């Protein structure tokens, strides 16, 4: 399992981000580098890419808040 981590330095402070859209469903096959999610922090959006090839396991569904540094998915 390779975790999909939101880098702790992606933004500052205690505010929470959320996935605005998962581009793949839980259980889909993805390739390394595929864009898998778009994350919004207040009004800025960031692209999240797959760190490795494998099966996507979503841990944090869309629109659910998380802190920077969180693991939002894993690649099995």
């Amino acid at each position, binding site marked *: 399992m390779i975790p999909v981590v939101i880098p702790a330095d992606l933004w500052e402070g205690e505010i*929470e*981000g*959320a996935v*605005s859209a998962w581009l793949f469903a839980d259980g889909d096959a993805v390739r390394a580098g595929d864009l898998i999610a778009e994350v*919004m922090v*207040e*009004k*800025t959006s960031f692209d999240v890419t797959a760190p490795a090839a494998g099966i996507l396991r979503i841990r944090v569904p*869309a*629109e*659910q*808040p998380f802190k920077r540094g969180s693991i939002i998915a894993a690649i099995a």
Partner: protein
Amino acid sequence: MRPSPKQWLWMYQTMVKSRIFEERIAAAYFEGKSPVFNMANGPIPGEMHLSNGQEPCAVGVCAHLDAGDFVTATHRPHHIAIAKGVDLDAMAAEIFGKATGLSGGRGGHMHIFDAAVNFCCSGIIAQGMGPAVGAATAFKLRNERRVAVSFIGEGAANQGAFHESLNLAAIWQAPVVIVIEDNAWGISVAKAQSTAVPQNDARAAAYGMPGHRVAGNDPEAIFAVAGAAIARARAGEGPSLIEIETHRLAGHFIGDAEGYRPKGEKEALTDPIPQLRAKLLGLGILDPTADRALTDEAEALVDRAISKARAAAYPVPEQAYEKVFA
């Protein structure tokens, strides 16, 4: 021409009122928009363009206008609406989409209309210029001493309607003043990238009317230049164009991450409200007690407007079908 103490206090309090109003609107706007910032959500959906930093333009010009004078504004209208005397309660209710709003919720933040004080605005760039020229021409035809003012952004000076309207204003010698709020940005495009001349007042000459540039976002200088142009229009001496250097202290709309803005550019801008407060304190026109009282009064008016707007009922769906025709 300098503001009287009474005018100074009105200008200052109006700037403060506008700022507090927009702070409350911004706070309400963010409700329901987290963690995912989705414009459709919350008590105020849609785009929201704030005017913080640009208040001097509104007060320096509107200090010379009364309810009978006709004003057109833009997608960034709150400061001008407030300075023109638009009903604050009904405007807040409109922005919240309520039945008690100026337009019963049909227009929202970009379509503030208050016919009682001859104010309107719209979301299409430079769209207000033609109507301002027309209203001014009507006043002239009827020998009324009313004038029209069209507020636009510097980005609008490259739109066809700008050039066509200036020419019309000049050939008809309409009592109209075009006020360009030059905040240096049209969304992400810097003025220098979009406009072939550094200052738009230079363009006035091409249409045979006086052009003025006011530097420094300075309420006193704006008051003086606008006062002269409006007096000239009222006296039947024709149109003028004024470009005011002002500051967009926030994003184009709420939600604009402003990645295009060079580092440090925004931080270097000064907020005109503390600046004016210091100036008026220095001039002895304001003292800390009066400042507190003026601010409290403005805040109370705004808070009343916002809480009435929140408490008001939404229109019923059938009302969408009303008012399409007179």
